[in-house]
């Protein structure tokens, strides 16, 4: 067992270890009045760490500057211990991620930090030891913890956690779908670029001959349906011409870079998704602009730009759902509904892309080479026929 024992500089050690928590913090601390530690716990809770605190139900705690209600709104479970025998819940231990234990004389107070002679022992990786402390913790929970039916506050916390989970899941799904959609669009972009560079001239020649032919036919038959066909071809020519002239080259990345790009992209989408900020139009607009820039950068395969945006979003606390803000059922529902609608839109858009002729070809073969060579043969044949027909008229 590797044990570290501290008699000074205890507070920084404590804060350091608490902020490293990944899954769970269980602490039984007689007195908890240090606001800095409260901040650390809220930040952890925000990351998704499950935080449970058992504290003594007395004046010292109640009159401290810590707002326990805010802690609870962050999803932190607070248990008030009333020892019926007249003694106190005098523990000062904390188990982190079911393997790290911190214990000693040290309370989470300013007094403990500044004036007192205190000690703190830390064992970083000992699940067995942690288990011993957790057993005691669970006993305390049973003794002082909420009786489910009578504790509405707990229900609210549970609800918050449920919503958080649901929202995090759907955000992950959106990120995945957005990436899929962007990838499809990239393939289509690639198709048009290759089409432009290999067959562009032939394609336009074919369409212009077809248009010319339809024009003459319409003049000859004096039929509306032939006139409409001619107008259809003419519009098609314009459309294809515009599409080809817009087609840009798509950069091909090596596997690792591609993988990294995808990961960054997905994370950035979650961080900056505009639908999260429906209560704040200014923020939403900003997020929208960033999202547009992000998608464009991804489709250009511009890793440095995607990383830059990712970093920007990561640093900015402005983005991401503000879990500290008190929300009622309706607010959660609204956020969730917006996200779900976005998810459904993406699913629809992807379904449409999947049946796109270009995607169908791509899925069958994996590249466009054969398609282009077949198309070339067909176009050349058609052009020959059209030229012949136009000459005989």
């Amino acid at each position, binding site marked *: 067992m590797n044990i570290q024992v501290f008699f000074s500089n205890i507070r920084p050690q404590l804060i350091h270890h608490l902020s490293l928590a990944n899954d769970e913090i269980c602490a039984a601390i007689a007195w908890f009045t240090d606001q800095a530690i409260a901040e650390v716990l809220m930040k952890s809770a925000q990351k998704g760490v499950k935080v449970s605190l058992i504290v003594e139900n007395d004046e010292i705690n109640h009159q401290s500057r810590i707002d326990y209600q805010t802690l609870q709104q962050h999803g932190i479970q607070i248990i008030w211990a009333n020892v019926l025998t007249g003694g106190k819940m005098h523990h000062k231990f904390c188990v982190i991620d079911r393997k790290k234990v911190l214990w000693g004389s040290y309370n989470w107070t300013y007094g403990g930090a500044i004036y007192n002679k205190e000690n703190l022992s830390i064992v970083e990786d000992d699940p067995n030891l942690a288990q011993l402390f957790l057993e005691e913790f669970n006993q305390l929970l049973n003794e002082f913890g909420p009786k489910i039916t009578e504790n509405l506050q707990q229900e609210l916390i549970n609800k918050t956690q449920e919503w958080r989970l649901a929202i995090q899941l759907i955000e992950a799904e959106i990120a995945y779908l957005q990436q899929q959609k962007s990838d499809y669009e990239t393939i289509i972009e690639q198709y048009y670029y290759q089409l432009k560079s290999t067959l562009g001239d032939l394609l336009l020649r074919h369409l212009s001959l077809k248009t010319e032919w339809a024009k003459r*036919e319409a003049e*000859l*038959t*004096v*039929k509306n349906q032939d006139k409409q066909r001619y107008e259809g071809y003419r519009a098609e020519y314009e459309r294809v011409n515009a599409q080809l002239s817009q087609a840009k080259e798509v950069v091909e990345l090596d596997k690792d870079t591609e993988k990294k790009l995808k990961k960054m992209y997905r994370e950035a989408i979650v961080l900056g998704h505009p639908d999260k900020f429906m209560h704040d139009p200014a923020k939403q607009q900003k997020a929208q602009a960033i999202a547009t820039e992000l998608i464009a950068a991804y489709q250009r395969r511009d890793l440095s730009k995607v990383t830059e945006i990712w970093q920007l979003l990561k640093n900015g606390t402005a983005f991401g759902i503000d879990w500290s803000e008190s929300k009622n059922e309706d607010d959660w529902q609204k956020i969730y509904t917006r996200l779900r609608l976005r998810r459904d839109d993406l699913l629809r858009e992807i379904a449409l892309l999947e049946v796109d002729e270009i995607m169908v070809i791509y899925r069958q073969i994996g590249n466009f080479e054969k398609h282009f060579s077949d198309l070339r043969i067909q176009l050349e044949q058609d052009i020959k026929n059209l030229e012949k027909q136009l000459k005989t*008229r």
Partner: protein
Amino acid sequence: MSNLIKSQLLPAERTAIQQLLQTAMSQTVLKSKPYTAYITRKTPSAMLFLIDQSGSMDTEIVFQGQTTTKAQAVALTLNTLLDEILNRCNREGELREYFQIGIIGYGNQDTDAYSAWQGALEGKAFVRMSQLRDHYLSMTQTTVEQTIRGRVTVSQKPLREWITPQSGGLTPMKAALELAADWLEQWIVALEDKDCYPPIVINITDGEATDGDDTELLQAARRIKTLHTADGNVLLLNVHLSDTEHTPVLFPQKSNDLPEDNYAQLLYRMSSEMPAIYNTDIAHLTQKDLRGAYTGMAFNANIKALVSFLQIGTTTSMGRTK
């Protein structure tokens, strides 16, 4: 005005007509809602029938249980139709001049097309209703099948006859279309911009033209189809008569409705799109829906199909008389 229309034009006359026509057509503006004019005595319309009288028209077919030739069946059908038109122009005991009617024949040993009127009307282009009434060739009996309360009864009915069956020689269809255009151009020039329901041209043939290639035939058809009164373009309908058992195609909506036969496709391109006022009748006949335009043609038609086709081609305009 119909009596002034010359059935054959000299080159100089044709040039003169072309000049007059250019002026007339440039002055006549098409209505935004075409094919809405009523046919009155002051604003009559015209019907022009082009009849194939080539050698192949003497092929024998069975019509109404009797063996007959195509030429005979066509003559009978046309005489019946003229008789019916004449009857329908009779209002309150007087004959009204709603229509002027022309018949152009092609074949019959002639290399050119010609006016197919016979007897007193011989050589005329468009004839008036009163001329039609006064100058039939003979009166014959015709067998009429009628279905009364589900029972088919056959009776004899008197029928006036204006044309007799003719057949022989080649099929100068292009010449017939050109002649039709000559007549119609004169008819339109003579209109002086009156709001008349446009003439309808029905070409009945059993074979391919022997005097022009596809392009020439299309050009000749175009000459007819681009002519217009203020009320709309002249309509050109084509009926291909067949002695085979193939299912007739009436009023196709797209070229795919027809067999991949070059001749069928040519007739399809030559024929006009039918104006919307015909749609209800056509849909009723063909059992096809009303969406999209019908092209005025029949392919592989037997005589029964020809009769139905002519009914639609002519009765819709008869319904516009006032």
